[in-house]
């Protein structure tokens, strides 16, 4: 499948087998156009190169891996890592770190894209197609929708940068690979005035804010769709065939929905494995592919046309998003989709996901204000269990359905699916041993880093247990006894009895976000944080995590409770009031993205391509610097140290927070871009304006070189860069940890990474948010 990733592959497919071509192209068309400001002169050539492998692939079958026949062009890569950074716009590293995580969060990009498509469609209808901006019509839309749009645009620009870098590394030999998330920042400020100015903020809050608003946007879209659907019930009723088509398209839109037919999976896997290391997690993606591919076969001829058009566009080079939107095929697709979505969509409306901290004892979790939290009490456990099992079954069924039918998973619920799990609060009477349960949704779990506030003073005495994440989670999920004066009234016993209350995971999300509460009470200081200070002793952060022991349901192939770390937001700084955020992300889907390309879903393929490209692009980005970065470069060996040194204290101001939302503030970028004007090319604005230049610091170069060398035999073969090669270069980073430090991206050896995350290191840079994604077994 990797071969598919390349656009070139698509083209090739066109040449080789028209059918395939059309499908692929269609997908590309819809999604990609927006993002690519690539120079396509080179693209066709690459396409040709990759074409061969693609031809072999059937829609249903797994596409064989492309043979890296074409020589690699590595020149450009030498200086930069093919990943894109984000410029610091003035203490915005809290935002940048989160954006990077989301960008690399499996499935998230695709979800945003599909949501954007839906949103755009909506705009069109509303405005009679007067304006289709790449961003969802900002004027008319609620801010949340705007956020969606600006998120989309940042994704696009990142992808563009990455692919252009990959395809034409020389361009960036000088500069850096980074883009400023200006638009997103502006939207964020509209959403919450708190983000005005250049203060530092808590990354976790930003994450919540973003996700909550995207969810809100989803809900908006959903609402509209249902409305529309009502209008168009008749048309929908006409034929299921239509629906199916729509469904397929939806699935594509949604991107990473994972449903797969087993056969498809295995095949794909085998292939992928043969080619290269593939992440288990990738499997779900392949599933989505499969479905979408099957859906594709049914697609109408106009879509093909569309795809062809797309290709043409690609050839042309730069097409603006607007054009794409306006293009008829897309619109049609959208419409059908819409109708379909409404049809498919679960009626249940869900409240905005991210609400506030809810504290249970020491435990806090973010719980959606979900109306449906149900409290049931059953006298007989057996009945209970039966219920539970039935519920579980239904739930798993739901899951399966969602997996199996991409169609049903309109992109709208992707967020919930990805980030939202469910906790069960189970209260068991110790007398009769009956229990009651209450279910609540959660988006992240906040765990303590130190044993308790009282213990803080004697941190050194903490037991070993206390330093493991497992310990922290068990603190989160620990059993509480309801005893003494405050007993529990048991409905069965008609009596106040002692009881045990435990917190278990009933449903685990695809991505578990763990928020490490790195603060402890000082008591002594009267500061705005009520005596809270940052705990700089990191927990032992495991790369793998199993929630098994806190889950109500046993591991199943469908949903295992095993997780793998894929991203960490680090906070460096001695206090909680200021510091710098960086993000470490493990590049995981590089390979899969290729696979996706091969599968012929129009949109999905595109997405995947985009992804791959993005990733490629991103890789190169590692190396750009704003002035700040450049400063820091020399010290690179030690991220932490560097960060701390580079931080310009002046720019930070401590903002007081209400006591409820304690977080780690960060955002310092050494110097804001404006201040940096003196520094050479580093000015982020410039960079962004003219597709970033790669600023190669020697150190970075060396890093890249190393990685490249390790990877596929990358030889400098003249100027011709094949997508294939580019892809391969990208794939070199598969499984590697990348450190995203605002505009600067660099390779982070796993050892170093682990060291940074372990308690032994006494640095001020500690993990703050951990992102684990589910590993299917």
């Amino acid at each position, binding site marked *: 499948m990797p071969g598919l990733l390349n656009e070139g592959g698509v083209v090739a497919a066109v040449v080789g087998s028209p059918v395939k071509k059309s499908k692929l192209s269609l997908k590309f068309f819809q999604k990609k156009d927006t993002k690519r400001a690539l120079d396509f002169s080179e693209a066709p050539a690459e396409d040709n190169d990759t074409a061969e492998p693609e031809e072999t692939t059937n829609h249903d079958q797994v596409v064989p891996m492309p043979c890296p026949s074409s020589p690699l062009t590595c020149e450009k890569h030498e200086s930069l890592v093919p990943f894109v950074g984000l410029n610091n716009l003035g203490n915005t590293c809290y935002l940048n770190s989160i954006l990077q995580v989301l960008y690399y969060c499996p499935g998230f990009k695709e979800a945003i894209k599909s949501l954007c498509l839906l949103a755009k469609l909506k705009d069109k209808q509303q405005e009679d197609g007067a304006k289709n901006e790449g961003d969802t019509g900002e004027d008319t839309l609620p801010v949340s929708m705007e956020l969606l749009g600006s998120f989309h645009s940042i994704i696009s620009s990142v992808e563009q940068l990455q692919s252009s870098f990959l395809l034409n590394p020389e361009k960036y030999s000088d500069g850096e690979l980074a883009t400023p998330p200006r638009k997103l920042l502006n939207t964020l400020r509209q959403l919450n005035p708190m983000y005005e100015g250049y203060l530092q903020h808590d990354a976790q809050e930003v994450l919540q804010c973003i996700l909550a608003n995207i969810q809100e946007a989803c809900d908006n879209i959903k609402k509209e769709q249902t409305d529309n659907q009502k209008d168009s019930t008749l048309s929908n009723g006409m034929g299921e065939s239509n629906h199916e088509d729509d469904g397929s398209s939806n699935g594509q839109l949604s991107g990473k929905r994972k449903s797969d037919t087993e056969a498809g999976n295995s095949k794909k896997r085998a292939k992928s494995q043969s080619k290269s290391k593939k992440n288990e997690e990738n499997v779900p993606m392949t599933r989505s592919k499969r479905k979408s591919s099957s859906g594709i076969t049914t697609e109408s001829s106009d879509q093909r046309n569309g795809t062809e058009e797309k290709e043409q566009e690609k050839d042309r080079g730069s097409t603006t998003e607007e054009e794409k939107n306006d293009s008829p095929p897309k619109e049609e697709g959208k419409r059908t989709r819409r109708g379909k979505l409404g049809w498919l969509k679960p009626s249940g409306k869900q409240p905005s996901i991210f609400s506030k901290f809810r504290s249970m004892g020491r435990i806090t979790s973010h719980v959606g204000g979900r109306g449906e939290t149900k409290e049931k009490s059953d006298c007989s*456990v057996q009945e209970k269990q039966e219920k539970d099992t039935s519920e579980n079954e239904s739930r798993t069924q739901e899951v399966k359905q969602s997996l199996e039918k991409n169609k049903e998973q309109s992109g709208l619920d992707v967020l919930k699916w990805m980030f939202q799990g469910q906790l069960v609060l189970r209260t068991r009477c110790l007398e*009769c*041993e009956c229990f009651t349960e209450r279910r609540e949704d959660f988006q992240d779990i906040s765990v303590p880093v130190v044993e308790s506030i009282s213990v803080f003073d004697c941190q050194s005495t903490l037991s070993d247990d206390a330093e493991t994440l497992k310990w922290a989670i068990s603190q989160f999920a620990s059993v509480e*006894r309801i005893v*003494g*004066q405050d007993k529990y009234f048991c409905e069965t*016993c*008609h*009596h106040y009895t002692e009881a*045990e209350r435990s917190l278990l995971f009933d449903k685990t999300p695809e991505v578990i976000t763990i928020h490490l509460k790195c603060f402890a009470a000082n008591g002594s200081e009267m500061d705005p944080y009520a005596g809270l200070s940052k705990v700089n002793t990191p927990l032992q952060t495991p790369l793998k995590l199993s929630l098994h022991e806190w889950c109500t349901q046993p591991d199943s192939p469908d949903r295992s409770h095993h997780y793998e770390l894929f991203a960490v937001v680090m906070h460096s700084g001695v206090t909680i009031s200021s510091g710098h955020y960086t993000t470490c992300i493990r590049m995981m889907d590089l390979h899969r993205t290729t696979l996706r390309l091969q599968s012929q879903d129009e949109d999905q393929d595109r997405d995947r391509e985009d992804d791959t490209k993005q990733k490629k692009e991103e890789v190169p980005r590692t190396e750009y610097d704003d002035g700040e970065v450049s400063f820091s470069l020399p010290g690179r060996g030690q991220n932490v140290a560097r960060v701390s040194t580079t931080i310009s204290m002046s720019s930070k101001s401590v903002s007081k927070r209400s006591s409820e939302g304690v977080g780690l503030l960060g955002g310092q970028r050494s110097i804001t871009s404006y201040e940096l004007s003196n520094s050479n090319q580093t000015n982020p604005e410039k960079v962004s304006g003219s597709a970033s230049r790669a600023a190669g610091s020697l150190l970075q170069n060396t890093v890249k070189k190393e990685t490249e060398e390790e990877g596929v035999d990358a030889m400098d073969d003249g100027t011709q860069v094949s997508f294939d090669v580019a892809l391969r270069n990208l794939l070199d980073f598969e499984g590697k940890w990348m450190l995203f430090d605002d505009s600067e991206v660099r390779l982070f050896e796993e050892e170093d990474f682990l060291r940074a995350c372990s308690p032994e290191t006494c640095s001020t840079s500690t993990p703050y948010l951990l992102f684990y994604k589910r590993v299917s077994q």
Partner: protein
Amino acid sequence: MQVSYVIRDEVEKYNRNGVNALQLDPALNRLFTAGRDSIIRIWSVNQHKQDPYIASMEHHTDWVNDIVLCCNGKTLISASSDTTVKVWNAHKGFCMSTLRTHKDYVKALAYAKDKDGNKDSIYSLAMNQMGTVIVSGSTEKVLRVWDPRTCAKLMKLKGHTDNVKSLLLNRDGTQCLSGSSDGTIRLWSLGQQRCIATYRVHDEGVWALQVNEAFTHVYSGGRDRKIYCTDLRSPDIRVLICEEKAPVLKMELDRSADPHSAIWVSTTKSTVNKWSLKGILNFRASGDYDNDCSAPLTPLCTQTEQVIKGGASIIQCHILNDKRHILTKDTNNNVAYWDVLKACKVEDLGKMEFDEEIKKRFKTVYVPNWFSVDLKTGMLTITLDESDCFAAWVSAKDAGFTSPDGSDPKLNLGGLLLQALLEYWPRTHINPSDDETELNHGMNGEHESRIQKGNGYFQVPPHTPVIFGEAGGRTLFRLLCRDSGGETESMLLNETVPQWVIDITVDKNMPKFNKIPFYLQPHSSSGAKTLKKDRLSASDMLQVRKVMEHVYEKIINLDSESQTGAASAEKPSEQKEEEDMAVLAEEKIELLCQDQVLDPNMDLRTVKHFIWKSGGDLTLHYRQKSTETNAIQDEFVSSSGLEKFSIA
């Protein structure tokens, strides 16, 4: 401090609720049951199979969690959720002493010292017969072993994964059996300080264990309602003895014969069963063991050998709107109708739809809450708390009481009840002489001033247990209503009765009426303009009729006579009552709230609660009656008219 009382029969011959513990006195063939209905009962088990009840030992006020018979059956010790441990003369059934050292539920009998800073609640205890070892099981999931002679901790035994609810020790204290909520039975060697074997015979938690003297066969029961006999040496050999109808709380072996001939089993239901074990011999002899643990076993016994029938426990109750009567449903689905004020059952309604009956007895009348109901013992326990005890006033007529002088005074339900509960307490008696001479005249005055005892309207059954306890539920003092005249009880009452009860029962200080503010305005349809908006205030139980009289007298009449339209803000409740005026008023005008015509019999709090419904001050409108509205009014009256209670 709270005052509670139990509404019950004088003699409660049957267990009203689950039975937490059993003890068998083989010498006298007596079985002691420790009931969740707070009563320890003594049963004759070998004769009188029809009516085995001998006596009750009633002093606890909450679940009796454990009992131990000691001193050759002369003494019984009981532990209760009322936080006390009591020592009883087991033969005669009276309470010899009460130990109040515990601050929380006493779940199991502790012979050793207190829990020693252990935060986990102890759910089981065992001591060997030689008195050298005590084992405790708790939510800590470990067994703690002590030497009761020195109070030294000997060891901790880890292995269970959940609460330990049952423990047994062999005679010399070398082996221990434990049953846990984790569903396992474990055999421990105290010498080796480790678990020797784990038996998984139950599907759910193991709550009760018994073992033969030789410590070779364990009988176990638990949440899964099944009772097994398991051979400790070869765990595969197990016999399903019987299946109960409810989770098994306790078992007691009939050790009069060896091998044991029967086992008594108590469950969360009130019936106690005796199951024969005779079949087990044949079972063993035949070698017909069911070695396949996975196969469902057929129980050895399907018929009980003897049954100590239990009574029904109340499992559901509904306080009716008059805040005086309660509907209850018991475990047999019988519905009953109770009078809280008189502390008695009014009527057995038999089996019927509980909810239907509640609907049927719904009245549009609002009385504030003034008591709470507790069903923990399976009987009605009514608790009065200072915070709201005096909230409810009713007119004597509405309550079905007539006062000697024919007036219709307002009665405070909580106050009346407290007076009735302490009716026999001499301090509450009103004597012609002053307090200091009360003792001297006690005997004489008691007869002479009978009328001045109690509340003058009703009495509660003399056998009613009255309980003084802390708000958290800890019992301080329990006595029967009729016993409060006794010297000891009287003294204890002096120490115990809280001031707020003294105020009403001794000092006769009646609480104040509840006032309700409201506005009275002409209805918009009458065309009259509201000149002022006076905020009136009246007792919340003022009847609408009185307001109508006020309107008629002070507003309409004045209007017609002087045309001033000025109404005084005088309190309507203070108007003197004139029959003619009332009749006239009802003929001429009507009052509305939220555009609903009000029944003259309704009182203001009812109007506010059922018709006004919203926040803010109640606003009433008045208007002259027209013919059309009559129909409406009639309809309304018929649907919401107050029912009067007949008082037995």
